[in-house]
């Protein structure tokens, strides 16, 4: 197994027999038993030895550590805590120590802080999530309860709720958890949803001292709602793709979307494709955005799904959403 020549990243991967891999995996298991809970160890795997930046074709058990002790530091560790030294002798297999600092990538560095930061006043187009799920969708907009007049956030069911087992009055955080939000950033509590009516929508009561306004970030206020119609040009402000546009090519659709492994029917669906200028229509994280008629500033749909290549987006007719939830769009004045 041991060879001295290094291979470049682009050269074919060396082949190991099944017996060699089994032996390596057994050695990895021994390494995990001894070292996985060492606070300096982040990952233990089986792979090629990395030497001076090159990938060799030697099969090793690799321990990925935050800090690789060298020289005197290694000598000191060997004396004071020999059980923490990850050695070939102890594991019974060649060992490689890889220094690295893996971090979960909560934020996309290309996303604007104006959408994924802590936003005040709250408005449509910014990052949001429920307190349980590690994701982020879009705060669609501010509405008011038709009976009580209480201010609420409107977004998708799969953003604000996400599960049949979600607790009542679950907290909603802004920014969403994927963008670093936590219960310290709670802005609302879940009130109701209408997924059982085939509408992927929910509302949450505002509980924050932050102000909330009728405004779509970079688009302006929403002046009312209308049903989408064929050929209508639409635009939206979303957490991931910011302001995008498209054209309605289909209406009165019914679809089924997989949520949590189960197909859930969604009704009153309108289909959006790229407009003449092309470009991205939507992406993950835009869920909950409001599609708006740019000529009237009327909200025509609630974004909930999309397709890449070709670029399509799906929205639910906004009047149907508002009626089902018994809410209305807040007067922008």
């Amino acid at each position: 197994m041991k060879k001295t020549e290094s291979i470049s990243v682009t050269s074919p991967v060396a082949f190991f027999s099944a017996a060699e891999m089994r032996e390596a995996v057994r050695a990895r298991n021994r390494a995990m038993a001894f070292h996985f809970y060492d606070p300096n160890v982040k990952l233990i795997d089986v792979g090629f030895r990395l030497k001076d930046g090159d990938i060799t074709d030697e099969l090793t058990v690799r321990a990925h550590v935050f800090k690789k002790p060298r020289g005197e530091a290694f000598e000191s560790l060997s004396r004071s805590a020999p059980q923490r030294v990850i050695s070939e002798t102890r594991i019974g297999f060649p060992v490689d120590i890889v220094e690295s600092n893996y971090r979960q990538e909560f934020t996309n560095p290309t996303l604007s802080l104006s959408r994924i930061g802590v936003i005040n006043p709250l408005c449509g187009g910014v990052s949001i999530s429920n307190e349980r799920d590690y994701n982020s969708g879009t705060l669609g907009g501010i509405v008011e309860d038709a009976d009580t007049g209480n201010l609420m956030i409107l977004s998708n069911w799969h953003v604000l709720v996400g599960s049949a087992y979600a607790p009542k009055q679950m907290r909603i955080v802004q920014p969403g958890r994927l963008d670093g939000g936590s219960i310290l950033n709670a802005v609302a509590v879940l009130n109701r949803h209408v997924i059982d009516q085939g509408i992927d929508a929910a509302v949450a009561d505002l509980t924050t001292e932050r102000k909330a306004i009728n405004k779509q970030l970079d688009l302006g206020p929403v002046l009312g709602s209308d049903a989408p119609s064929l050929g209508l040009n639409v635009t939206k402000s979303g957490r991931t793709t910011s302001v995008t546009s498209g054209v309605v090519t289909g209406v009165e659709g019914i679809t089924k979307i997989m949520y949590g492994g189960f197909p859930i029917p969604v009704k009153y669906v309108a289909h959006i494709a790229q407009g003449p200028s092309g470009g991205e229509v939507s992406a993950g994280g835009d869920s909950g955005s409001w599609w708006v008629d740019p000529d009237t500033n009327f909200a025509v749909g609630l974004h909930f799904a999309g397709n890449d290549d070709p670029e399509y987006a799906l929205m639910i007719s906004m009047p149907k959403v508002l009626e089902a939830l018994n809410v209305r769009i807040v007067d922008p004045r």
Partner: protein
Amino acid sequence: MSRENIPEGALRARDKLIAQFFNHPDVEMIDVGYNLNSPGTSQIVLRVHTRLTDHSKLRLPSAVDGFPVAVITADYR
């Protein structure tokens, strides 16, 4: 394209298509709209959206109640 209303009878035809094909595991959506396979035209058709690239597997009718059936390949998430 200018805004258009749905022709009379299209929703009834769509419902017939839904009754027969919506529960097919490879059918993602059924709606009424433009035929995206003929860009630039304003022909309004019944549309079945599927992740399948071989549409023949669905065995869709060519038309329902006089409304042509078109297939759109997509995988919505």
